[in-house]
C-alpha cells in the first residue's frame, strides 16, 4: 500500500498576558507525508517540497525499506467524494485581526473584575485551518477542510495562603462564529472563580473515597481509564488490560461509551480521518459490555476488517496511528443534585485537569482543578488541587450512578510524541471509591 497525505495548515494565535497583547503570531506549513507498507513493515518520509521531483524523492525514501517489492509504474484510478467544504461558516482568515484581539481584552477585564485577589490574567486565542488530501494505491481519494478555534483564560489569585490558579477553555471545530454563542467574559469569570475559590481551600484528603464527577467536568476519566486501552495498536501488541475482553463485562452496566468523530463542532471532530476514512460513531462499551476497539488502517488490515475512522496524525510529518476523537459516556437518568444528596461523604470534582495512563496495567491518574468536599450529601469546602489514581477496569466497575446533565469538554491528547485535538464528555456520575492523592491524612 502506498499513500500520500498532503496538508496545508494556516494558524494564527495571540496571547494577552500581564495586561498586554504580547504578540500576534501567524504560521503556515504545507507538505506531504508518504507511507509505503509492505508486509509488516512501514516506510515513511515527508517533504515540504510539493513538486513532482520532491514527492518522488520522498516516495523513494519511504519505499527504500521495502525494496524487495520491485519497481515499475502502476496507474491507479482514484475514487473520491468530491471536494471538501469546511463546516465553519466564518473562516478565520476573513476575520479582522483586531476582532480576535478584542476578545482577549474583554476577557482580561472580566477576569480582573471578578475580585481584587485576581493578580494575574493570561488569555489566549488561536485558530487553524487545516486542509488535507489523502490518496492511496487502494484507490482512495479523500479531502477535508478542518477549521478549529480555541480560547482560554488562566488566572492567578493571591491570598494569605499563597497563590492559586484557575483555568477555563473553549475549543471547537468551528470558525469565528463560535463567539456568537460563547461569551469570552463568562470563560474569564469561570477561570477567575476557580482561582479565587481555592484561596480558602484546604488540602485534599488522602486515601480512597467516593468521588462525584460533575457533568462535563472532563470525560478525561474515560479517555484515560479505558479509551487508550481500547486503541488497537496497544491491543495487537498485548499491551492493554482490555486484550481478549470483547463480549465481557468490563464496566458497570451504567456505562455506555462511544467514540464519535462526527459530533458536529466538537474539538475532536472531522469529516475524514488522516487516512482518508470518513469519521464514524463507534460504540465501544454498551451497558458495561466491551463491544469493540478503535482501529486505524494498519491494525484493521491485520484483523481483516475495516478501519473505524480513528487513524489520525499531528501533521504531514507524522505517521498515522490509532487515536480517539470525541469519547463520551452516554447520559443516565438521575438528577445530578439528587446524586450528590445521596452521597454522604466524598469528593465532588467540578473540573478535571489532565491525565495519564499505563495501558498495560490500566493504572491511570487525572488531576483536579476545582474540587470540593461532600459532607452529609452537601457540597462544602473547596479543596486544593490533587491527582486521583485508579485502575481503569476497577474504576469503571465502581460507577454506581449516572445523571442526565451531559456535557463535553475539549482537550489535547498526547501519544507517542504526537498531539491531536479530542473531545471528552460525560454526565455527573459517582464512583464508589477512588484514591485521592492529597496531603491531608
Amino acid at each position, binding site marked *: 500500500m502506498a499513500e500520500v497525505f498532503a496538508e496545508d495548515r494556516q494558524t494564527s494565535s495571540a496571547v494577552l498576558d500581564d495586561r498586554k497583547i504580547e504578540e500576534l503570531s501567524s504560521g503556515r506549513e504545507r507538505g506531504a507525508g508518504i507511507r509505503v507498507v509492505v508486509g509488516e513493515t512501514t516506510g515513511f518520509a515527508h517533504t515540504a517540497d510539493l513538486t513532482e521531483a520532491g514527492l518522488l524523492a520522498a516516495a523513494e525514501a519511504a519505499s527504500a525499506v521495502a525494496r524487495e517489492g520491485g519497481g515499475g509504474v502502476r496507474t491507479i484510478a482514484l475514487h473520491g467524494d468530491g471536494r471538501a467544504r469546511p463546516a465553519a461558516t466564518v473562516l478565520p482568515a476573513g476575520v479582522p485581526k483586531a476582532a480576535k484581539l478584542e476578545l482577549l481584552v474583554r476577557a482580561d477585564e472580566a477576569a480582573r473584575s471578578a475580585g481584587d485577589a485576581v493578580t494575574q490574567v493570561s488569555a489566549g486565542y488561536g485558530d487553524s485551518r487545516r486542509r488535507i488530501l489523502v490518496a492511496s494505491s487502494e484507490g482512495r481519494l479523500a479531502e477535508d477542510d478542518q477549521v478549529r478555534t480555541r480560547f482560554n483564560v488562566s488566572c492567578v489569585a493571591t491570598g494569605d495562603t499563597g497563590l492559586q490558579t484557575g483555568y477555563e477553555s473553549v475549543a471547537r471545530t468551528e470558525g469565528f462564529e463560535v463567539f456568537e454563542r460563547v461569551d469570552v467574559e463568562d470563560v474569564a469569570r469561570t477561570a477567575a472563580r476557580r482561582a479565587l475559590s481555592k484561596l480558602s481551600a484546604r488540602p485534599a484528603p488522602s486515601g480512597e473515597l467516593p468521588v462525584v464527577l460533575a457533568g462535563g467536568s472532563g470525560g478525561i476519566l474515560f479517555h484515560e481509564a479505558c479509551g487508550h486501552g481500547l486503541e488497537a495498536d496497544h491491543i495487537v501488541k498485548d499491551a492493554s488490560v482490555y486484550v481478549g475482553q470483547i463480549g465481557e463485562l468490563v464496566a458497570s452496566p451504567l456505562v455506555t461509551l462511544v467514540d464519535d468523530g462526527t459530533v458536529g463542532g466538537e474539538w475532536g471532530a472531522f469529516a475524514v480521518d488522516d487516512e482518508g476514512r470518513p469519521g464514524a460513531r463507534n460504540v465501544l462499551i454498551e451497558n458495561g459490555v466491551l463491544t469493540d476497539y478503535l482501529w486505524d488502517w494498519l491494525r484493521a488490515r491485520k484483523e481483516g476488517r475495516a478501519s473505524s475512522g480513528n487513524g489520525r496524525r499531528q501533521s504531514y510529518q507524522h505517521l498515522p496511528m490509532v487515536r480517539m476523537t470525541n469519547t463520551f459516556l452516554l447520559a443516565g437518568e438521575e438528577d445530578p443534585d439528587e446524586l450528590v444528596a445521596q452521597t454522604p461523604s466524598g469528593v465532588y470534582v467540578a473540573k478535571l485537569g489532565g491525565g495519564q495512563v499505563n495501558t498495560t496495567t490500566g493504572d491511570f491518574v487525572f488531576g483536579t482543578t476545582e474540587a470540593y468536599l461532600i459532607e452529609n450529601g452537601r457540597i462544602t469546602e473547596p479543596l486544593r488541587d490533587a*491527582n486521583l489514581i485508579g485502575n481503569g477496569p476497577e474504576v469503571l466497575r465502581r460507577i454506581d450512578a449516572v445523571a442526565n446533565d451531559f456535557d463535553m469538554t475539549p482537550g489535547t491528547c498526547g501519544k507517542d510524541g504526537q498531539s491531536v485535538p479530542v473531545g471528552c464528555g460525560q454526565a455527573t456520575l459517582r464512583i464508589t471509591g477512588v484514591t*485521592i492523592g492529597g496531603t491531608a491524612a
Partner: protein
Amino acid sequence: MSDLPSLAEAVAARAEPGELVEVYVARGQDTEVRAFEGDVESLSSATSSGVGIRVLVEKDGGGRLGFAWAGSLDEDVVAETLAEARDNAAYATFDPDVTFARPDGVAPADLDLWDADLASVPTDRKVTMAIDLERQVRHADSRIRQVSSADYGDELVEVALASSTGIRAFTRRTAAFLSVSAIAGEGADSQTGTGFSAGRGLGDLDPDRAADDSVTRAVRMLGATKAPSGRSTVVFDPRVVSTLLSVMSAAMSGEAVVKGRSFFAGRLGEQVAAPEVTLVDDPTDPRAFAAATFDAEGLATRRNVLVAHGMLGQFLYDTVSARRAGTRSTASAVRGGFAGTPGVGCRALVLEPGQLDQPGILAAVGEGLYVQSITGVHSGVSVVSGDFSVGAEGLLIRGGHLAQPVREITVASTLQRMLQSIQFIGADLEWLPGVAAGQTLAVGDMQISGS
C-alpha cells in the same frame, strides 16, 4: 559551511527604519526506526526546515512585537513571513520592556555538539540497532512477555539566528537515542518498564544499559500491590529526579516571577531548601544533553547558580523578562523550534552531588518508599501554588533495602516543603536526556495515598 547564517542575515538586513527584525532559521534531518518481533515495524526519515521571524516596531525604547513562521525556506515564503510578522506587530500592545537581545560581549563556550559520523551512518546499521535491542530485551528474562516498542532515533539540527541588533549565532547539534519498553508478565499480572540511552552519536549509545533498565524495571514490579496510606520518606529514582527538577525549574523563570506566577517570587536570598542543596543550570557543560553555545536569542550561554547551600540566589531571564525585572539576561531564552517565540527555560540543571550512592541512601533511610516512575506531573504539580501530587509506582524500602513492589498510589506534598525536607542527595549523578541531570534523592515526610 551552512547556508543558514547568510540566509538569516540577509532577512535581518531588511529591517526598515524604526523597526528591529530577528530571524531564526532551522534545518533538521531525522531518522526513526521501530522494531517489532525481529523485523522493522516502521522506518521514517525526513528533512525539514523553517523560519520564525519577529518584528519589533520601536518606540521610546520599547515597542510592539509581531511574529510569523513558516515550514519552508523558499525565498517567497520567507518574504511573506517577514511581511506577515510586520503586519502582526501593528496589533500588539505597546510594551516599554520589549526589545531584542544585543551582543553582550560574553564569549560562547567551546562545545562540540556535532558528531560528524552520524550523518554518514548507513540506515541499515540503525535498523540493526533497533532490531538487536528488541531481541535482547525479549530474550533477557523468561518473564518478558512483550516488547511494546524498541526504537532507534537520531537527529541532526542546524540553527542560525540573526537580528538587526547585531546578533549572529549559529549552532548545530546531533543526537541519537535508543529506547525500549518491556512488558513482564506472570499469570494475570503484567507490568511495564522502560529503558533508554542517549548521546550525540552512535558511539555514545549503550544498548545493554537500555535493555537492562527496561527488563529490571518491569520484572521487579511483578506482584505489585497498593501500598497503605501514610506519611513516609520517599526515595526518588534518578530519572524521576530529572523530571522533578525540570518541572520545578519553571518556578525559577524570571518571567514567571516578575508576573507573579511562581511560589519563589519575593524569596530571593531566603533559605528555600535544605542546606545540602546547590542547584546550577550550566548549558556550557558538555556532558549535559541539552548543552548549547547560544540561547534562543543568540546570547552565549553561561553558568547560573540558582540555589547555593539552600539559599535562593537568582532566577533565569531572557532579554525581556530581565528588563522587566531591572536586571540582565542570564542567556536562558529557549524556544520550541522555528514556530515558537523565545521564553525562559533551563537547559542543564544539576544538583550538586552528595556523598552516598543509591544503596547507601537506602540503608540510611531504612524504611520508606522507593519511587521508580511517576505519572500525572502536568496535572499534579503547580509551580504557582507549589502543590505537588503525582501517581507513583516503585518498591517499599525495608531494612535499608528494596522490598516488595507497590503501584496505584500517589505521593503528595508541596514543592516548598519538599525542598526543605531533602534528606540525601545521591553521589550517583547521571546526565539524562532532557534539561536536567538526575541522581537518587531522598525527601522526608511525604503523604502516600493508597489502600
